[in-house]
């Protein structure tokens, strides 16, 4: 279409300087506030995992027996019944016979 001249246009002073500053401030604040909220939520996203981790370490620190070979019940089982780890009885009772490799499923 042939470009024709125009005789009228919008007044550049439709938005006063005061309005411009006020509206710009509101627009930028509205855009910035959710960004701050999202950032804060992302930073705290693993807080419940960290809390559980700290709880487990705390439980460990307060426990008398902290390793399986220090468990007197297990030691008594081997002494009185199964003999020693990897013994025939241990193999039969404690080791699974039906291992299925599921890593490729």
């Amino acid at each position, binding site marked *: 279409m042939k470009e024709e001249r*125009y005789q009228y*246009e*919008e007044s550049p002073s439709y938005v006063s300087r005061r309005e411009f500053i006020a509206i710009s401030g509101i627009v930028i604040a509205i855009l910035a506030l959710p960004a701050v909220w999202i950032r804060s939520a992302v930073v705290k996203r693993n807080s419940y995992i960290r809390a559980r981790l700290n709880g487990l370490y705390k439980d460990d620190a307060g426990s008398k027996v902290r390793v399986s070979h220090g468990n007197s019940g297990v030691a008594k089982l081997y002494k009185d019944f199964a003999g020693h780890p990897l013994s025939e009885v241990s193999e039969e009772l404690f080791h699974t016979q039906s291992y299925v490799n599921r890593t490729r499923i």
Partner: protein
Amino acid sequence: MSKNQSWILKHPWSVRSFHYLLVLSFIPLAITGVVLFFKPFDQLTMNLYMRIHVVTGVILTLDAVAYFIIGFTRVIAFVKRSFSFSVNDIKWFSILGGYPQKFLLGKKVPVPPMGKYNSGQKLFGICVLIGGTILIATGWGLWGFPHILPHGMTALFGTLHLVFGWILILFLLVHVFLGIYMFDDFKAMFLHGKIPYEEAKEMAPLWVETEIVKIER
């Protein structure tokens, strides 16, 4: 087109170019979005639709960010116009701008004087400003950073993306229909940017009275 007709520059080149890119990106986004929602095709085809959705989403984002920076004064003017309300807006909504009477009954009813945007366009403008921003932000979150966002936030982003997507798609149908119906405005937006002074005076008398100035050459 009369030689003596006076013209108002309504949509300068910056607005038109922003609108071209908006059309080129939002329409494919809407179509692929609806397809992704209903999932009618096989996995490979759905994957292709997802890729188109992502690429056009990036184009839309670049377009919006560029216009926000380059045309910031026009964005502020758009915000001011969209959020300026008066009693005329209530009167306009009470008769829905006289469009149903015109289309269904063939009657022309008196419509309260409007500014550059009528009340329906203001509502659309508010939906575009808020909904468009939310769609862009949630779209990026869902596509680019789902592994970083907390699970609850990703779910919220998905819901917001869906709700605002549907709202803007439904508004788009009305916008396209009325945009083509107002053919002078359609030509102004897609071709030369100008509308006849007399038509603007009839359709948007407050805009012509308060915002339009004659150019001194």
